[in-house]
């Protein structure tokens, strides 16, 4: 059939909708079954450009009918490996949409195709044309593919049989992607969707840190940045690793400076106290330091009650939000609780003392088993006193810190280094017993504070300077 196709192939056909009125056949979709799958194979087991069809072809299908479809591609090449399967598979969506008169939606076992009557009238009467075009595009656009073979199935029994093994492949793939960590990649992604109301916010999305709103993971960032590198999600080269424990990278610090217009120049991805991630306002959960127990509580947007410190989500969110680094508070997305690096530079789960019951239940299986029962909820505690008692009773690891602290109590505290724009919580709105103290970083250097006034209108009638008596 050579390279002659009875249709045009161009990216300009992406987004072309085939309506029921102008549809020849519908394949897979919500009312039928199907899937697409790319498998890496041994180069000797593949006959390049071969197409196999199991089941009826387009010419055997009645106009207006619906059929299942499975599209399996075997790819091979020196550089082809299992990890590339999902990336190549994703391109099937794109390339099929390049074909005029063919609509391809969704992915994996949720694919949904429609072929237009016009396309069939112009000669698209066999799946072979489509498969051959896709194989050509695979090899042209992805040169690491040296050989490719396509198997399309339209027989329902065969589709169902293969579907189970496809699902196994997807599952194994998902397990691999869940095991991807910050150290495995060289690019993180930033997002500026909140920039309009949190102008100094620096949202950094990494494999171990979901966006604060909980909506964008590292893969979403990668997908969006690839389509539109100038769009709201963009690449942040990781740069040099400065500190693995707290998750400090030179690339993130540079991005912080740029995105916050100089407000912040350091962000530690997995730190609660020192140079924490900024908090936009969209965060699903806010973490708050409870100085009386030296622990961290977490309160989520859906919890309407008050935390042991007497405050509600809305009050703490108000203090934390706006794209600032705020001492003693941190906004996060719920999925961050599932991160193996969850506030690891400040003790991780061993520092967590309280969260609302519904939130705790939601992530229960992700809480390390030995601490699960030691985290209080609103059912066990209503104030600091009952929280203290609960933690002692359950022998929460934080209790060990209390004893250590008592011993060190006489040691004079030194001010921690703070960067420009670093904000202290507004004490006026705090209960009088609330006084977050920031644990000292070992990085030292009491450089003090730099105060920058922006758009400030200061009017002073009189200044009297007196010697202190």
């Amino acid at each position: 059939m050579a390279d002659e196709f009875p249709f045009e192939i161009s990216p300009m056909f992406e987004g072309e909708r085939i309506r029921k009125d102008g549809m020849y056949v519908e394949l897979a979709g919500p009312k039928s079954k199907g899937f697409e799958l790319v498998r890496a194979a041994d180069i000797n087991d593949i006959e390049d450009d071969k197409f196999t069809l199991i089941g009826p072809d387009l010419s055997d299908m009645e106009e207006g009918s619906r059929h299942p479809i499975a599209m399996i591609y075997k790819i091979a090449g020196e550089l082809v490996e299992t990890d590339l399967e999902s990336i190549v598979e994703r391109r099937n969506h794109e390339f099929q949409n390049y074909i005029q008169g063919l609509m391809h939606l969704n992915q994996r076992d949720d694919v949904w195709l429609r072929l237009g009557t016009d396309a069939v009238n112009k000669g698209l009467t066999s799946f072979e044309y489509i498969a051959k075009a896709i194989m050509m595009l695979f090899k042209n656009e992805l040169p690491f593919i040296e050989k490719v073979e396509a198997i399309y199935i339209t027989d329902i029994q065969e589709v169902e049989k293969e579907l189970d093994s496809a699902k196994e492949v997807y599952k194994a793939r998902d397990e691999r992607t869940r095991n991807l960590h910050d150290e495995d990649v060289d690019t993180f992604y930033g997002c500026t969707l909140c920039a309009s109301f949190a102008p100094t916010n620096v949202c950094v999305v990494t494999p171990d840190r979901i966006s604060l709103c909980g909506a964008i993971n590292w893969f979403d960032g990668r997908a969006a940045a690839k389509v539109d590198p100038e769009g709201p999600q963009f690449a942040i080269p990781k740069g040099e690793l400065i500190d693995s424990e707290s998750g400090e990278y030179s690339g993130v610090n540079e991005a912080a400076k740029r995105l916050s217009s100089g407000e912040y120049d350091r962000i530690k991805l997995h730190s609660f106290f020192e140079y924490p991630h900024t908090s936009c306002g969209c965060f699903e959960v806010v973490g708050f330091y409870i100085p009386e127990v030296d622990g961290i509580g977490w309160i989520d947007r859906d919890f309407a009650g008050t935390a042991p410190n007497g405050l509600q989500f809305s009050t703490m969110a108000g203090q934390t939000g706006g794209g600032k680094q705020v001492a003693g508070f941190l906004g996060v997305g719920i999925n961050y609780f599932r991160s193996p690096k969850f506030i690891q530079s400040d003790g991780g789960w061993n520092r967590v003392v309280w969260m609302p019951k519904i939130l705790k239940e939601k992530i229960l299986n992700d809480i390390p088993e030995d601490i699960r029962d030691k985290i209080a909820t609103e059912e066990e505690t209503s104030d600091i006193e009952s929280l203290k008692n609960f933690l002692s009773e359950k022998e929460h690891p934080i209790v060990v810190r209390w004893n250590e602290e008592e011993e060190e109590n006489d040691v004079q505290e030194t001010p921690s280094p703070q960067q420009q724009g670093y904000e202290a919580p507004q004490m006026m709105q705090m209960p009088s017993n609330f006084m977050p103290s920031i644990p000292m970083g070992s990085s030292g250097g009491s450089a003090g504070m730099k105060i920058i006034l922006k758009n400030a209108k200061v009017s002073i009638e009189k200044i009297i300077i007196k010697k202190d008596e």
Partner: protein
Amino acid sequence: MFSVTKIIAVTGKGGTGKTVTTSLLIRHLTKTDNLVLAVDADPDTNLPETLGCNSSRTIGDIKEYMHEERDNLPPDINKESILESKIYEILEEMPGYDLIVMGRPEGSGCYCYVNNLLRGIMNKLVSNYDVLIIDTEAGLEHFSRKIFKDVDELIVVTDGSRRGLRTAERIRELVGELETEVSNIYVIANKVTDTNREIITSTAKELDLELIGMIPVDEMIVERDMAGKPLFDLPDDSTAVQEIERIAQKLGL
């Protein structure tokens, strides 16, 4: 396939008859061989019923689904293509037009990301049609969220009351505050009788509103409204239908 899509938004105070006007405009457009995408962007969803089209799920439901399921989806799955597919699923395919219902408002979480995806998908989808017509509440919420881009014709439907015309004036002010580009703003008076015809004309003039049509009280519409019957198949000799034809001509439709 892709063409320049004319974008019409129909708005107005509740109860003035904007959904009736929208339905009759869609009726006219499909009769003149335009492929139409109709969007019900009023939380008090009436357009499907007025058109005689069953619609069960809404964009709001899908946004909620995306919100609820996001941590359960495979990590590297493409969320844009899931969202796109779900939108295609709820798109009601009728002869000559497709219908989308925006539905319920957002929950308390952050919908920035899903709205951003939605903007891109809607933009692509809209380019498949000759005309996009949006039945929207007077607050123009979906426009402030920029789900729809520029509007060619914004039609404010008003009844005979001075308040209805005042709403038109306020909508004009609101449009000025939106980032959406609106090329023209017109007013259609609905439920017009011989007694209020003159006062509507003079009030519109006084408020500097461009009145492009006056739909008389139509007994056929009143009857169908009472019985909860659709208006899409009104006969050509309905007085309202005839006035809509004249309005459409003025709008170049």
